[in-house]
């Protein structure tokens, strides 16, 4: 009676699993970068222009991420950006930055999830 289970290709499987995070990171970076660039364009297009400082203050900041993480930050840096977003005592809020960045971030996460699923992995939980 057989008392031995033989698996072939285990070494190859381990190597593939070990390379998976790096491969996924390489695939995710262009997705995230394209999303960040698109987000910057959308925010700049939507911002009102008086002096131009508000539009000029929208920045794409690549971040150093540890391990296999990939991180891009879209920031609005004009000193009065919060007064546009949340309003002043005498002007209404004009929600621009937050809705655009939140929508685009959800889309980027969905795209990365789709990328992960191409490997045969299942992604569960909050996808946003």
């Amino acid at each position, binding site marked *: 009676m057989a008392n031995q289970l033989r698996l072939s290709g285990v070494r190859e499987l381990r190597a593939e699993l070990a390379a998976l995070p790096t491969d996924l990171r390489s695939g995710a970076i262009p997705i995230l970068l394209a999303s960040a660039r698109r987000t910057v364009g959308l925010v700049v297009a939507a911002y009102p222009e008086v002096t131009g400082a508000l539009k000029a203050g929208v920045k794409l900041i690549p971040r150093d991420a540890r391990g296999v993480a990939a991180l891009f930050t879209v920031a609005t840096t004009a000193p009065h950006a919060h007064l546009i977003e949340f309003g002043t*005592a*005498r002007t209404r809020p004009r929600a621009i930055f937050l809705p655009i960045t939140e929508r685009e971030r959800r889309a980027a996460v969905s795209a990365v999830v789709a990328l992960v699923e191409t490997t045969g992995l299942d992604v569960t939980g909050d996808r946003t």
Partner: protein
Amino acid sequence: MIDATEVERAVIGKLAGDAALAALLPDGVYWDLARQGATAFAIVSLSSSRREGELREGESFRTFVYIVKAVALGADADPIAAAETRMHALLHAGTLDLPAAAGCALMTMQWIDRIRYTETIAAETWQHRGARYEVTVTPTT
């Protein structure tokens, strides 16, 4: 069909109907912009919205993110801090009185992130405090 205006009315109504908040912000609760001359009031405004399409012919949930903030003239931090605390107590994990015309029922209402800043207009100090709240509803019709 979900009537977003009724959801907004319910949020404003919840805040406007609270005696403790009215004592702290006597000039009332407004959508987007307060009346001229108001010096202590609450503002409710739409920050974003989205729908989650799964059931019910494409829409199972709809989420509204509202800016809810107290605005007060002057540098005294205590009243506006109390107003912020009261608004949070009313809204976070709270209930909403949604009429049938709203076409929906409340699923969740929760705090997302804080709002706090000070501005100076013509040498006057105005304080703004509050948060963004996420209100998720599901269709009932």
